[in-house]
């Protein structure tokens, strides 16, 4: 009996040990699996970020292109001059009197068949709530009410100071929300979860309400409605996307024109004005400063409080030739008086505009460090290129100054260097901000924090700077502040503290890159001003997905975008591959593959980590690169029979192309003439050194002119070549490929929360 028990015990012990070991094995395997998922998640994030910021650099290039045109292009014909004028003479928003002209919307009739919300002014809280409800049910606000609301909003905004002052004595709590980017679901979710605005519940929305998402119009309507209803408790800050030029590129303009075909142009015009009346910042209890981007080592709150914010129409505006002349005069004067003001392109903070070597390394590091707790990524402009551009712009300015210094007419003018000079025969010419005022605003709308000390030019965004903990500290001390709340950057958790918790980034657009890519967040400040963060993800579908599934779908989206980028640079990549394959074997080692691809794309991505997702078949640990590139192209084949090199070029430049189209299409009709298209393409391709013949492009354009009326429908053009992933039926943004799985949209019903 005894031995029986001990045998049993022995077996039991053995079995227990086996079970223990089996469990340990399974756990070990599982933990590795999870780690690999985590790595994939990080890499996916860095893909999105680097592509996003590379896109912003494109924007910079585009502006250089237009500046180049302005500086260099001498129209040889009447047509060309008209053409240029159309692009560059900014249609300034109508004078104040015209704006208040009720004829703008009064004459618009609302048909009886209209079942959407109707507004009457002054707005009551119930109206605002009803508006939210109507939008939740996917109704659309009639253009008449849109214009009316915008008029009223403008009237209110004009009275506000540049820096809103808010006190917690009046409202018990203040909720601060970050970027929404047209994602109405997130806004609705916040209101349902946190409560609608009220005298006891103050809100601050920190800019970037529009662009990218599909419901920017509705978001604006809701925000303005609540602002009118609770003027003391509801506050809006301007973001870098509250800017009609940025809107041309990032989808808001398209959305408005799509939703309001008849009155869209009027709406856009009014918006242009409304945007520049948005306050620049909000100060809570004189202790917490809320602004969209960040600060620089030159940020001067007193100056910011005093300047005329309305003068800054766009932080990206193109200078008209008149203005350039005036600026040149100023600089000429400045040069003559030997002042320290040195001409430099608008987008570089003046104090750091020159490409001296100390700047370069620190900016590079600064940039990488800027994405604290998210993957360092993206790429600064190539230093040689940057310095070349800077130098050229500087040279141009100096050249012009020298030229003009020779003209006696200029010396006579003796204009005061203040740009507020109204001495201008052209009544339409609006006063300009001074370069310093300009820079101050650009800094607070575009800057990003970085981990390193110091302050460097934000070359990734092309505007503002990277500011370090010491800059924050100095600013907080100078103005006796406790901390800074800003937005502007997407964070995986929807928020992020940095600079020893003195800077809080708050981002409220969940699933920004893709369903499941990130959470959104908002922050509540109690009477003691301690921040309490609330996170959310406004898509029920993501809750039911496992981590693995969530990561997979986001990853697939990122990889698609990356493959497209690879395709768009196939020719250059092939050249690089060949350099590593001197023996012309057609094969390349993986290590060389990574180096080659990075040297062309400059995305700073962990290519070796990504390799398994991008390269499937290997022979002998080497890649047959030609067929790999061909496979990339296959994904992009369109119905038209275009040579792949042309397609590649179109892809590479598609965002710029779209933006250019929309700029040319100054009346926002959605179509441009063949001539205009041909013209612009000629200029653009010569500037960008694009090697496509005019004939090629013209044939292309003609083939797109489906009804042969000499006009190209922009959207058709872009869609025909699949340059946009989806049609604009929903006013969707074409910037990043999105999952078009309709079942997801159905799942989203945040109202149920």
């Amino acid at each position, binding site marked *: 009996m005894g031995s029986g028990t001990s045998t049993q015990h022995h077996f039991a012990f053995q*079995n227990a040990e*086996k*079970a*223990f*070991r*089996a*469990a*340990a*094995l*399974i*756990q*070990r*395997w*599982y*933990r*590795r*699996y*999870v*780690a*690999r998922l*985590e*790595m994939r998640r*990080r*890499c996916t994030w*860095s893909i999105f970020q680097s592509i996003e910021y590379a896109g912003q650099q494109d924007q910079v290039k585009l502006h250089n292109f237009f500046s180049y045109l302005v500086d260099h292009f001498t129209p040889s014909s009447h047509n060309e001059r008209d053409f240029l004028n159309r692009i560059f003479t900014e249609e300034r928003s109508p004078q104040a009197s015209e704006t208040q002209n009720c004829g703008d919307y009064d004459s618009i009739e609302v048909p009886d068949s209209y079942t959407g919300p109707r507004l009457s002014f002054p707005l009551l809280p119930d109206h605002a709530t009803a508006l939210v409800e109507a939008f939740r049910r996917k109704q659309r606000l009639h253009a008449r009410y849109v214009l009316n609301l915008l008029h009223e909003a403008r009237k209110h905004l004009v009275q506000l100071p540049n820096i809103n002052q808010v006190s917690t004595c009046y409202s018990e709590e203040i909720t601060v929300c970050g970027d929404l980017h047209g994602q109405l679901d997130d806004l609705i979710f916040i209101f349902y979860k946190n409560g609608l605005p009220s005298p006891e519940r103050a809100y601050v929305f920190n800019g970037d309400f529009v662009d990218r998402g599909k419901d920017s119009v509705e978001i604006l309507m809701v925000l303005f409605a609540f602002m009118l209803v609770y003027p003391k408790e509801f506050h809006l800050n301007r973001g870098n996307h509250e800017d009609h030029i940025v809107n041309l590129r990032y989808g808001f303009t398209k959305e408005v024109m799509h939703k309001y075909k008849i009155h869209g142009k009027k709406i856009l015009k009014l918006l242009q004005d409304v945007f520049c009346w948005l306050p620049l910042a909000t100060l809570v209890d004189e202790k917490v400063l809320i602004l969209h981007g960040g600060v620089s080592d030159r940020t001067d709150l007193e100056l910011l409080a005093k300047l005329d914010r309305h003068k800054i129409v766009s932080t990206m505006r193109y200078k008209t030739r008149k203005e350039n002349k005036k600026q040149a005069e100023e600089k000429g004067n400045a040069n003559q008086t030997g002042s320290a003001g040195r001409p430099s392109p608008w987008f570089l903070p003046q104090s750091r505009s020159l490409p001296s070597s100390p700047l370069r390394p620190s900016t590079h*590091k600064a940039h*990488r*460090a800027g*994405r*604290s*707790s*998210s*993957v*360092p990524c993206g790429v600064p402009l190539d230093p040689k290129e940057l310095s070349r551009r800077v130098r050229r712009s500087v040279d141009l300015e100096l050249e012009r100054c020298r030229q003009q210094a020779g003209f006696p007419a200029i010396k006579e003018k003796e204009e005061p260097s203040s740009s507020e000079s109204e001495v201008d025969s052209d009544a339409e010419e609006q006063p300009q901000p001074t370069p310093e005022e300009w820079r101050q605003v650009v800094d607070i709308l575009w800057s990003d924090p970085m*981990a*390193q000390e110091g302050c460097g030019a934000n070359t990734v965004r092309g505007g503002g700077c990277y500011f370090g903990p010491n800059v924050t500290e100095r600013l907080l001390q100078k103005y006796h502040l406790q901390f800074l709340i800003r937005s502007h950057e997407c964070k995986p958790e929807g928020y992020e503290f940095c600079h020893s918790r003195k800077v809080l980034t708050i981002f409220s657009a969940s699933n920004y890159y893709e369903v499941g890519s990130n959470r959104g967040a908002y922050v509540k400040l109690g009477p003691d001003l301690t921040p309490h963060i609330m996170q959310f993800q406004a898509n029920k579908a993501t809750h039911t997905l*496992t*981590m*693995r*599934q969530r990561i*997979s779908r986001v990853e697939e989206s990122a990889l698609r975008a990356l493959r497209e980028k690879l395709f768009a640079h196939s020719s250059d990549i092939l050249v690089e591959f060949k350099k590593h394959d001197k023996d012309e074997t057609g094969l390349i080692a993986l*290590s060389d593959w*990574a180096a080659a691809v990075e040297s062309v794309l400059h995305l700073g991505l*962990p*290519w*070796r*980590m990504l390799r*398994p997702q991008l390269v499937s078949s290997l022979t002998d640990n080497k890649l047959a690169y030609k067929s790999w590139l061909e496979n990339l192209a296959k994904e992009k084949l369109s119905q038209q029979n275009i040579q792949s090199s042309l397609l590649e070029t179109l892809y590479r430049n598609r965002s710029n192309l779209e933006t250019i189209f929309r700029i040319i299409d100054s009346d926002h009709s959605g179509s441009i003439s063949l001539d205009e298209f041909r013209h612009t393409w000629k200029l653009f391709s010569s500037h960008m050194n694009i090697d496509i013949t005019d004939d090629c492009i013209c044939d292309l354009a003609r083939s797109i002119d489906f009804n042969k009326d000499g006009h190209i429908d922009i959207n058709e053009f872009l869609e025909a070549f699949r340059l946009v992933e989806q049609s604009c039926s929903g006013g969707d943004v074409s910037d990043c490929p999105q999952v078009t799985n309709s079942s997801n949209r159905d799942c989203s019903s945040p109202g149920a929360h």
Partner: protein
Amino acid sequence: MADDRDRDGTEVAVAEFHKKIKEAFEVFDHESNNTVDVREVGTIIRSLGCCPSEGELHDLIAEVEEEEPTGYIRFEKFLPVMTEVLLERRYRPIPEDILLRAFEVLDPAKRGFLSKDELIKYMTEEGEPFSQEEMEEMLSAAIDPESNSIHYKDYITMMVIDEN
């Protein structure tokens, strides 16, 4: 001659390993100062193809940590240690069939599945126990809601495909 070739081969391998390790490290180097939080080192090591147990990981971390642990691991210390690990092919991943056998050990009746409760018991009480978070996450993907059990053969197949 053979030695030279070997040396070349190893040198090339080492160079490649260095690049791989650097890449993986940089993904978590948030401040771009060549350090990572010690809590992320496990992820880095595992994503480089290794499959250490928690105990082995612990030992490895001890090797790369500072004399006085700072909570951060420096790249200079990490690189040589990790290179050795890769060269020696330490902590190899677990082949599919071994994994299957492990599940079968826990399922002596050979039913082909484990109940949810059984899985929880084994994973949180045996071996190197899961945290609650780890357990929940595994359950969400592994458990078939209708039968409330994990059909481990299918599960393994699904996970393996996913890896590729």
